[in-house]
């Protein structure tokens, strides 16, 4: 049983699906669709970051007493991804496919190496240490992330 890992990794995959939808729209040159899809992607990312920073991480820190460990690193990486999201959004607004591809590719690698750390290390530790909290924590994470249910079209 890895309910936290399953829920949060599922939300990662949902965000990936939205990222790919934007990429496909840009490849077709459908800027209107790309802009709409990007908005959904950026919102999903923001909700995921907020669920971690406001609900999951504080509980993990409280329980383990480790405030300057992995959660701090994850927060730092969220900041870097927010910057890349903003830069990609500007490229999209300027309808600059090459610039968008550059920011998006960098964001994808950043996002996935971040996800690997969370899914392989941090979430399993959360499952291990916060197992008795899942009754209240899981619905809270589901509510904040949108339950991993994204409109993937």
């Amino acid at each position, binding site marked *: 049983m890895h309910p936290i890992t399953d829920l949060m990794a599922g939300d990662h995959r949902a965000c*990936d*699906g939205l*990222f*790919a939808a934007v*990429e*496909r729209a*840009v*490849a077709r040159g459908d800027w209107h669709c790309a802009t709409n899809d990007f908005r959904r992607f950026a919102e999903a990312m923001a909700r995921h970051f907020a669920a971690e920073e406001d609900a999951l991480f504080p509980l993990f820190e409280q329980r*383990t007493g*480790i405030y300057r*460990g*992995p959660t*701090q*690193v994850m927060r730092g990486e969220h*900041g*870097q991804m927010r*910057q890349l999201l903003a*830069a990609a959004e500007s490229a999209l607004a300027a309808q600059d496919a*090459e610039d968008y*591809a*550059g*920011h998006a*590719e*960098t964001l*994808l*690698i*950043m996002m*996935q*190496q971040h*996800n*690997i*750390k969370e*899914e*392989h*290390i941090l979430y*399993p*530790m959360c499952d291990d240490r916060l197992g008795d909290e899942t009754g209240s924590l899981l619905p809270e994470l589901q509510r904040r992330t949108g339950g991993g249910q994204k409109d993937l079209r």
Partner: protein
Amino acid sequence: MRALLSFDQAPPLAAPLRFFLTAPLFSALAGLLLLLAGPQVLVSRWTPGALALTHLITAGFMLQVMLGALIQILPVVAGANLKHPLLVASLVHGTITPGALLLCAAFLLSDRLTFEVAALLLAAGVGVFLLAAGCALYAVPTTSPTSRGLRLALPGLAISVALGVLLAGARAGSLPLPQATPLHVAWGLIGWGVVLLAVVALVVVPMFQMTPPYPESFARFFPLALLGMLAVWSLAESLSGGALATALSAFPVGGVAVFAALTLDLQQRSQRARMDATQHYWRWAMICALAASALVLAANVVPTIGERREWPLICGTLVLFGGFVAVMTGMLYKIVPFLIWLNLQNLGQGRILAPTMNRVITAKSVNQQTIAHFAALALLLAASVSPEWLARPAGLAVLVASGWLMLTLLRATGFHRQHVRRIQALVANSAA
């Protein structure tokens, strides 16, 4: 748990980068050797030139990329931090580089002392790495199939290198020649190479190529099953050899084919808009692995196929240049620009956005090098059949493709140096 909790301790850029920059030097030397020595190298797999060529790729290119990448990814995928990563990187790189060069010189010169020094250096470098990586991996609990798989891959390297040392000792005349070559090859390529590649693929194929995940049962059992099949074959090969060993060899080879076919199937279902060079490298590497597996199995069934002069050369080319070198080159095109971007981004302290990855290494340069690589592969395969005409052109093509890779990576480090200065100046100005 404390050990696991410090996965922020990514090694400094210089630790893995030295391995990635050195790797293409070995494949370029392989091309140069074939260009200069010509058709005589390809008379059989046992010529000094062919043995040197093989080890320039395995103990040179492949070992550099694999150890450099592991130093980088152990903290990321397994939370396993090497203690003193820069020191470990210096010691390992400082020994395996001259070790692999001397090993190839020893094959060419048939020189006893050179074999002994080469074996000593390679064993020392790999030993330091195994000790450091083993300590890091066993200090943390296994939290995923990846960290379990990484633990399983390390013994394959140890076995292959140990058998290599015995074989080098025999060539130097200081040990009796053991019948260990098939075991040395199988443990190096499958027990270490394919197991490590599969464990890495479990993570990177679904996440970076946006494919469905590998089936859970495959992720959980494949590395162990492959090693088990290899161990059973090894036992039969050492004790009796003959028909039983030949029959049993079909299992690990079939396992490799299953991994390649599964990866190709997943790639077909990628959500990404279009395939980039890295994905092309992966796809062709898997096709080459399937072709090589089919050739090995065909030779098991019809022994006359395996007795043909060109058979081992074609298999070796498919596995080494078509498979491992291809997939590693493809991954270098993601790893190196990302590490450089990350380093510059951290240097900018969140105030200055680093130039994106596609400016560190441009897609145009990557695409051209990819074409050069596969042209070289086609020429190498053709040269295995007709060495008289094609050995030197194939050598030149390998030299061009490897030189191109080396130049691309060196340009990326030049880009890094240039932007370090720019970002440092901007940060100093913004602080003033």
